[in-house]
């Protein structure tokens, strides 16, 4: 009987495994968002010498959950002059691209279970890093559409700022990643981690790491580069007109993008799942990866509570006149060192 069932499912096993992995990762990403919100509020509280949320549940852990339940039951207001279809499409694009861009990220080394070798990724494509850039780059459509469809001046300015900022820093991000690609000769993220088995690239390419991280902070619209949603000038930027769950979806997108960006930095520069000191297997690999990502996430929050928001013209000048030439110089230097 059981043999019959197993035999029946044999040809579809890759399909089932793939589907299960896709569902696990999507659910994990959705579930990690309340945790991150909690972490950010707790840490921000400590940085500002106050307690942070501590009333609901142990250590205030119930706070983000009760917040999201509250948001679900809030009225969804669509103001009358907004474009209804685009207004709904915008948060959908933001969350969709955020979840999809995580599909190619390997979270630990491949392992064996029930005689099947399972790769801890949804897909291991040869153009992994290009895929992430392409899909997460599409996320700006969500923000621009949100700004345009709301028919509110704050939203429009937020959407335009968001697009201008993202395209400016995408160049630096791409060129900083190019130095790593020159060194590994591959666009595949698994290959990149494998070539860091001896030393993580942060020690070989410190400049590229700095550029990539700064551009990554700007790409995810985090402080000090959170101009698209600067509260003091633009109320809430491109999501001013959004309420309830649709408002929360923009936050989901932002936090998932933060996780993706931290994972990408980990894979490119911090050696991915290489533990370096502990014995290497799938479990310790995952722990090492999770630790590095968590450290970077805390670093994001630390940055937010340390730096004041940068002025908009300085943001643009910084990206175009400072980061871009340095990134190109670093790329030329890396390729010269590789060839000569």
């Amino acid at each position, binding site marked *: 009987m059981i043999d019959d069932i197993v035999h029946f499912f044999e040809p579809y096993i890759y399909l089932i495994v793939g589907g299960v992995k896709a569902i696990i990762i*999507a659910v994990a990403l959705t579930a990690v968002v309340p945790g991150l919100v909690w972490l950010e509020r707790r840490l921000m509280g400590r940085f500002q010498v106050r307690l942070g949320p501590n009333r609901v549940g142990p250590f205030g852990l119930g706070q983000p959950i009760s917040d999201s339940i509250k948001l*679900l039951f809030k009225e969804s207001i669509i103001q009358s002059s907004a474009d209804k279809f685009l207004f709904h499409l915008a*948060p959908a694009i933001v969350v969709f691209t955020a979840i999809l861009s995580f599909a190619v990220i390997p979270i630990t080394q491949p392992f064996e279970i029930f005689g099947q070798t399972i790769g801890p990724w949804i897909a291991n494509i040869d153009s992994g890093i290009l895929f992430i850039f392409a899909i997460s780059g599409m996320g700006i459509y969500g923000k621009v559409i949100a700004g345009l469809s709301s028919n509110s001046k704050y939203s*429009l300015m937020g959407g335009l700022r968001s697009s201008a900022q993202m395209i400016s820093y995408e160049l630096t991000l791409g060129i900083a990643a190019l130095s790593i690609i020159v060194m590994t*000769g591959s666009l595949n993220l698994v290959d990149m981690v494998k070539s860091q088995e001896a030393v993580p690239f942060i020690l070989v390419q410190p400049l590229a790491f700095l550029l990539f991280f700064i551009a990554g902070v700007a790409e995810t619209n985090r402080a000090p580069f959170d101009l698209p949603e600067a509260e003091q000038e633009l109320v809430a930027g491109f999501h001013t007109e959004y309420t309830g769950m649709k408002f929360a979806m923009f936050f989901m997108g932002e936090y998932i993008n933060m996780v993706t960006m931290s994972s990408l930095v980990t894979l490119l520069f911090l050696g991915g799942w290489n533990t370096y000191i502990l014995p290497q297997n799938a479990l310790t690999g995952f722990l090492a990866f999770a630790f590095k990502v968590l450290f970077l996430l805390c670093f994001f929050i630390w940055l937010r509570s340390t730096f004041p928001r940068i002025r908009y013209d300085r943001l643009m000048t910084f990206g175009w006149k400072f980061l871009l030439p340095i990134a190109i110089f670093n790329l030329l230097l890396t390729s010269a060192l590789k060839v000569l």
Partner: protein
Amino acid sequence: MSEYFFISLAAIVAIGVVAVLLLLSTILGPRNPNRAKLTPYECGIIPQEEAKGRYPVRFATLAMLFIIFDIEVVFMYPWAVSLGELKLFGLLEMVVFIAILGIAYIYIWGRGGLEWD
């Protein structure tokens, strides 16, 4: 090819998550609109004109600059992967390419294309 199939699986799951979230927000929330709720938010001031239509032209200039530089980066990706085989030839090619682009970059800088005010 099959790996890209898994990406489409992930896309289906992501669409599912998005659909559930949008559906829940539509079903669960109360619905009692009034005129003040349905006007665009402008810090309590009654909106005088539509927000659509005009925006500062420098955003457009910046978008054009981005296209120039992004095409350059697109060209660099295959070059970076195959630099190990191209060796010195590849490096010199890229130096020439970046030099030409550098001239354009300096020209844009000199004409004030990168200024924001």
